[in-house]
């Protein structure tokens, strides 16, 4: 087990619900995890499974209404964020905990210069002159490898390419050297060649600053290449957690298993003709109408009566490999 002081983030039994037109649903249901200093934790799962809401919950930025965090704790460097009042939380946001969002195009204020947006982030948390903050901003832009940072700082977001915008977002998020960085699908909107650049950059900076990183993605390739530990979410719940090696070697949850099999991989060499992929039948369930037992049961080949009736607990299947499946032991064999 990691030493207490090594833990940057400790999330316990986080629960976030939404009250919407079609009813109340749990977007994040009883999710727990930890992040250590300098560690990268990946959260994977399909669209709508609650990854972003989890991240927003950590930042306490869940839009209210309609959303609300209804339970659990989020402990950042020993402080329970959920217990803070809004003013205290503001001091921490952007300072100790930062976030990079999915869409670099829309996440920057279109009517503010790039530099000013970074300056704002710095000056919100540090009592320095705007001149100094300017310098820091340019410095940060240099750090994220934007060419001619001084000039770019004076430009508006629309004048930058997608990759540069995402870099500017990263610069902004890291400007106060946070203890924890959350990156919510930071490269989904980008091309593969740019994605590789950005991911490499994030990892470099993380190493340099010793930041804990929560990386949210649905791309297992990205996970394999970046994370140390992985949690897999399905329909608002954490269904599996393991070190990246353990997970890829032997997934214990049938969903993870299916996911891995259904994702095509670039043939390294010598692939024969067209291949059918393994598919997970059925559709991703709507959070509003979740089945009573295991949410994955309707699509699961291994499903048994019990799965439909009872939600399986998250059990340790050895070496800290957690999985929520009654038949986790059999998953490897059956597949």
């Amino acid at each position: 087990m990691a030493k207490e002081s090594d833990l940057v983030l400790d999330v316990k039994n986080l629960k976030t619900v939404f009250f919407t037109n079609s009813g109340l649903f749990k977007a994040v249901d009883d999710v727990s995890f930890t992040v250590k200093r300098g560690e990268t934790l990946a959260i994977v799962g399909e669209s709508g499974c609650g990854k972003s809401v989890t991240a927003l919950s950590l930042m306490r930025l869940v839009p209210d209404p309609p959303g609300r965090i209804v339970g659990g704790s989020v402990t950042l460097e020993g402080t329970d964020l959920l217990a803070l009042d809004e003013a205290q939380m503001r001091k921490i946001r952007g300072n100790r905990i930062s976030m990079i969002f999915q869409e670099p195009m829309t996440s920057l204020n279109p009517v503010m210069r790039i530099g000013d947006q970074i300056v704002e982030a710095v000056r919100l948390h540090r009592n320095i002159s705007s001149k100094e903050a300017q310098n820091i901003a340019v410095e940060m832009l240099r750090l994220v490898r934007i060419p001619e940072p001084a000039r770019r700082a004076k430009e508006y977001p629309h004048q930058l390419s997608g990759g540069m915008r995402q870099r500017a977002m990263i610069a902004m998020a890291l400007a106060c050297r946070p203890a924890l960085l959350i990156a919510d699908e930071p490269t989904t909107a980008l091309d593969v060649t740019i994605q590789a650049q950005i991911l490499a950059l994030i990892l470099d900076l993380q190493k340099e600053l010793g930041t804990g990183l929560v990386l949210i993605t649905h791309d297992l390739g990205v996970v394999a290449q970046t994370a140390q530990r992985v949690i897999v979410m399905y329909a608002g719940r954490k269904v599996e957690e393991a070190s990246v090696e353990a997970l890829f070697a032997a997934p214990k949850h049938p969903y993870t298993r299916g996911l891995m099999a259904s994702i095509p991989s670039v043939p390294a060499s010598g692939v024969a003709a067209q291949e059918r992929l393994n598919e997970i039948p059925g559709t991703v369930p709507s959070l509003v109408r979740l089945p009573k037992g295991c949410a994955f049961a309707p699509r699961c080949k291994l499903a048994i009566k019990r799965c439909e009736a009872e939600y399986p607990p998250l059990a340790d299947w050895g070496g800290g490999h957690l999985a929520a499946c009654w038949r986790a032991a059999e998953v490897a064999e059956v597949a």
Partner: protein
Amino acid sequence: MTQALLEVTDLKKYYPVRAGVLRRQVGTVHSVDGVSFSLGAGETLGLVGESGCGKSTVARSVLRLVEPTSGQIRLDGEDITHLSKTALRPHRRSMQIVFQDPFASLNPRMTAGDIVGEPLAVHGLATGKALEARVAKLFEQVGLRPDQMRNFPHQFSGGQRQRICIARALALEPRLIVCDEPVSALDVSIQAQVINLLIDLQRQHGFSYLFIAHDLAVVAHISHRVAVMYLGRIVEIADKDELFRNPRHPYTQALLASVPIANPLAKKLAPLVDGDVPSPVNPPSGCAFHTRCRFAMERCKTERPALVNAGDGHQVACLLNEGTGRSQ
């Protein structure tokens, strides 16, 4: 060689950039700048490339949804590039398209059944009961229940919506289906279902696919041959195995290297190219890739390499590959 189903020769599509008084044209977007390829019956040609490199424009031009600036499109040997709208209509039955975003490509105010039946109605192929029966059959073909015909698009999940799109494309029993990123908007676990469906349909009916994607892995799985585009041009085209085993263009290489491999033990990310994609309004001179290419030479800045044969039907447009030389 048997006659190809689709043959595209030196296709160009320029969009004007307008400005000033009277909206005079001040520049040109070279969306597609001389693309040639052919596609045989029952074959799948994958088309990959970064965002904005002109893939969709190729797709639209092939279907004459946009008018190509120049070049030739032959369907079954017949030049359809300049056919009038009416003359084109019978040919529309031979080629259909499936778009990226299954939600946006379905009219939200029509039922699934109407959407799928519409092509039949438009071409007067079936009416009334017969139409309904045909639609029901199509629904079954793509794995939907016929009783879902009365539902509206928003009542379907993403994967199901894409199936409706495919059913609509199938309705006219085309021989060529252009798929413009048909799975990019889908959940990962659903993506496989759709790809499998496309593969199955091809096996049953012998369609040809022009399959566009930016995800190399997906393309790899479904295609027989793969073409790589960069800034409006095809830079490399080859049989799938050949291309993945033996990429010749530095851009293809970078692309392949940038795809994160779903194996924590395999090599870590190592970006092979720097910088951003140049704008198609002012494409770089010479080889468009020279601004980001590790191997760029002085010549690359001025000379535009042609797509040349490098043996085994492997064509590549790179000065390093003149003759049969390899870049690695």
